[in-house]
């Protein structure tokens, strides 16, 4: 009854069938996007980008953090299947000191709002439609601290019609001489009616650089996973917080199975890549990156322990140093995200790379990674062949289908340089499906739901999360590759545990899965 997942059981890379090598064409110039993440020491981390549809046309628009430059919003005016093209929008988000951006429909009005993380007071921007926003901290009683805000996550706790927000903070910027050990409090904002109550400090806090509410054990209640930067904490480690609707949050302990891990935690990405129903977690760091999987998966009626083993090395997901360009020093990894870029029904892993700030022990020319998941469970680096091996000093990223052709495209932010956009032009890619969730009332986008796609090799599942990455996230179409399948059975497990029906949907289409109704085919106007 007990399935032990042991790293050594994974097949070697040499025996793997080679996947389709994707191709990306850089279209930064044509795209018209002009945004760089600027600033000195206070902006060495952050630089996130948000992908979401603020115009209502179904195409993902982009919101960029700018650091000492102003944040900016870019409306997607690409044609379906065409080159990537955006136009600037005077949206109201043009604030300075923005470090990150996450879309979230806070008030459930069907219009995406935008959370702007800042060096200073973070701001909830209420979406007004047509890509216009207004500050809503006062309206929603969001008492953000004057802090170096560096991470964000959101969930809807059971029974609530207003989200719970987690705000991660970094070091105290006023500590000029001895900033080490000065990690400021992470905060949990719980609902108080249609506003937020007084924030609850999540102590101990260890200089968070990424946060994600995730139902790691499929219990129906997400926990809060936090990636922490060991450069600044003392006595700290990576964290997983139990956040139950009743009572105060508490971090899982070693006695409960949580193994201390101390890395330069910079980003979190999750996806069930071994089809056991539980997500793996990719963690970005400096030098070796991590890929964690549960040490032991027990039967469904036994409680799981949050005990993870690192399988990055045997699976070839270390991405430890540049694979091209001749710089042999270790890498510095930031945003990372799973996306099936060749539609072979296996999620691939993109990692944005870039030196912190002229650290001579680490690579200066540090190409971004694109790691293809192979049939045997190992990863293959194809950043160069795919055309995304940028040597810019990267931070944030998003993989979204900007031109709605079924292939995830790529936007990457750079420190002190313009962001870059690539169009995915992979030929011979597999089939795909894209899903958008919709439920009435609060949590319209189904944050916390699981989308399941049944294919010949098993059930491919992905959790709808808000958070993770490096200071930026996305909301909208959830893309899944289907390989050769002409159709697939799809269902949704809604955040309250309700199981939607299996529906067979044709490949290569967009579908809105509304709670309680049949899937609706969607197409751009």
């Amino acid at each position, binding site marked *: 009854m007990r399935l032990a997942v042991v790293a050594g059981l994974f097949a070697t890379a040499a025996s793997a069938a080679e996947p389709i090598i994707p191709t990306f064409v850089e279209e930064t110039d044509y795209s018209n996007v002009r945004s760089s993440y600027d600033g000195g020491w206070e902006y060495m981390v952050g630089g996130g980008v948000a992908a979401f549809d603020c115009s209502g046309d179904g195409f993902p628009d982009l919101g960029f953090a700018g650091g000492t430059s102003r944040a900016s919003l870019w409306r997607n005016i690409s044609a379906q299947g065409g080159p990537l093209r955006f136009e600037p929008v005077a949206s109201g988000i043009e604030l300075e000191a923005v470090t990150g951006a996450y879309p979230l429909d806070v008030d459930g009005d069907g219009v995406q709002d935008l959370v702007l993380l800042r060096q200073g007071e973070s701001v909830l921007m209420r979406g007004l439609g047509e890509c216009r926003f207004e500050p809503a901290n006062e309206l929603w009683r969001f008492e953000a601290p004057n802090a170096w805000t560096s991470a964000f996550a959101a969930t809807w706790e059971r029974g609530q019609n207003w989200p719970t927000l987690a705000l991660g903070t970094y070091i105290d910027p006023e500590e000029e001489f001895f900033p*080490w*050990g000065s990690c400021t409090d992470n905060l949990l904002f719980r609902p108080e009616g249609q506003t937020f109550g007084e924030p609850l400090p999540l102590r101990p806090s260890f200089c968070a650089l990424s946060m994600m509410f995730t139902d790691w054990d499929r219990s129906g209640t997400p926990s809060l996973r936090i990636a922490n930067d060991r450069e*600044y904490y003392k006595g700290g480690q990576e964290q997983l917080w139990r956040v139950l609707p009743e009572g105060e949050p508490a971090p899982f302990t070693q006695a409960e199975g949580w193994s201390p891990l101390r890395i330069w935690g910079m980003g979190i990405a999750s996806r069930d890549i071994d089809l056991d129903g539980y997500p793996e977690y990719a963690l970005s760091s400096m030098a070796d990156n991590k890929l964690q999987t549960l040490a032991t998966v027990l039967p469904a009626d036994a409680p799981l322990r949050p005990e993870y083993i690192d399988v990055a090395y045997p699976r070839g997901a270390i991405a430890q140093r540049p694979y091209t360009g001749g710089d042999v020093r270790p890498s510095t990894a930031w945003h990372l995200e799973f996306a099936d870029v060749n539609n072979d029904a296996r999620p691939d892993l993109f990692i944005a790379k870039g030196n*912190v700030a002229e650290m001579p022990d680490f690579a200066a020319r540090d190409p971004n990674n694109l790691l293809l998941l192979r049939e045997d469970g190992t990863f293959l680096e194809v950043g160069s062949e795919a055309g995304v091996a940028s040597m810019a000093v990267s931070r944030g990223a998003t993989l979204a289908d900007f031109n709605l052709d079924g292939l995830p495209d790529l936007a990457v932010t750079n420190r002190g340089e313009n962001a870059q956009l690539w169009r995915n032009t992979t030929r011979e890619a597999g089939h795909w499906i894209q899903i958008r969730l919709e439920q009435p009332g609060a949590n319209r986008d189904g944050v916390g739901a699981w989308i399941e796609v049944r294919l010949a090799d098993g059930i491919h599942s992905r959790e709808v999360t808000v958070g993770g990455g490096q200071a930026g996230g996305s909301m909208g179409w959830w893309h899944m590759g289907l390989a050769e399948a002409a159709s697939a059975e799809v269902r949704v497990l809604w955040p309250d545990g309700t199981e939607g029906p299996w529906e067979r949907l044709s490949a290569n289409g967009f579908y809105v899965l509304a709670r309680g109704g049949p899937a609706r085919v969607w197409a751009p106007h």
Partner: protein
Amino acid sequence: MDTVRGIVALVVGLLMGGQAMARPSPDDVLHTNTRLVLELVRHTPSYSPPVASRAFAYLYITAFEAVAGGSTKLRSLQGQLNGLSGLPQRRPGQDYDDAVVLQAALSAAMAELFFNTGPTGQRALDRMAEHLGADASEGVGAETADRSRALGQDLATHILEWAKKDGGHVVENMGFPLEYSLAKGPGAWTPTSRIVQQQLPLLPEWGSNRSFAMPDAAACPTPAPPAYSEEPGSRFMEEAIEVLETRRRLTDEQRTVARFWSDDPMLSPTPPGHWISIAQQVLDAEDADEERRAEVLAKLSIAMADAFIGCWHEKFRFNLIRPVTYIRAHLDPGFEPMLITPPFPEYPSGHSTQSAAAAVVLTDLFGEDYSFTDATHVDDGLPARSFSSFQEAALEAAESRLLGGIHFRSAVEQGLDQGRCIGAYASNLRTRH
């Protein structure tokens, strides 16, 4: 201007422990820079324990010479340390300010030794140099201040030039070679981690570095470790069984001891930094002046730097397998040491060698039964521990590696012996007239 001075004085006062002060004394300068260097060692990724020990040695030799130049009691180390000569001197009949000389020397040395620290370390270095430098010059005549700064910088430059020729100046890839042929065969060290860099051993050439006070890296050899054997009843297997059984029966106190001395790179000030921290605490408790501070820190850091050179020389002479590798292969496949196994050969134990060397020096300077309390790791959540002597602390540090499951008994005991031998060379340096 007055406002700015006031803020600076307040900042330095805060650094010194909350008391506002107008001008730091030389011992304040040494104390405050030591606080900073203990953080920089922790937060500079290439600072593994051997590299850290080297930086401490050059930094505190610089401090010692800066202080000794203005002292009637202290005697220069040039001519006593291998290759150190021709140090810049104070010009007779001219005024120098001791605090300015010392701050300038330390600031220049730290900037060079920690050129590769991250942006936060660089920022702290800049701020410290700016503020402490300004405060040290407060009320000092411009000519004297300029002359003092120049001397301090010249001293640092001279010592750093000497440092460049020791074989340990360039550390690439965090100290892990890009190419290295691993020896094969029974008992040979093999990688123990799943970190890519650590598939080759840390700093295999460190044992070829120029030593400081001892004649050369081979001056204090260790006997060979017990002959490798997979035979039940053999001494080698018996020592492995001791590690395994100890792991299985660890008491809470033993876990505490193992954690207390673990001193992992990038999560602590490293093992040599731990002993520098102990010295700083003892010196603070004694309200030591700058001559005493400089003498203690120089001798201590020299002893530990030599200890790592001597230890590494032996580690790569014997290239011995780690307990985790042997025990998993022959005794218990599920064996998990309590501590992370370091990525280099086992014999002798570096903790043991450097701790014994440190204890020899500190015992010589403070006495046989000198009680002290060590609060190095309080900020990391590990309570302070008290010891009745430096020797007791060194023995505990050495034993902690067996408790942690990463060293055999022989590595601990022979490491201690090697450290005592190496420490004697540093202890015998003549630092006073």
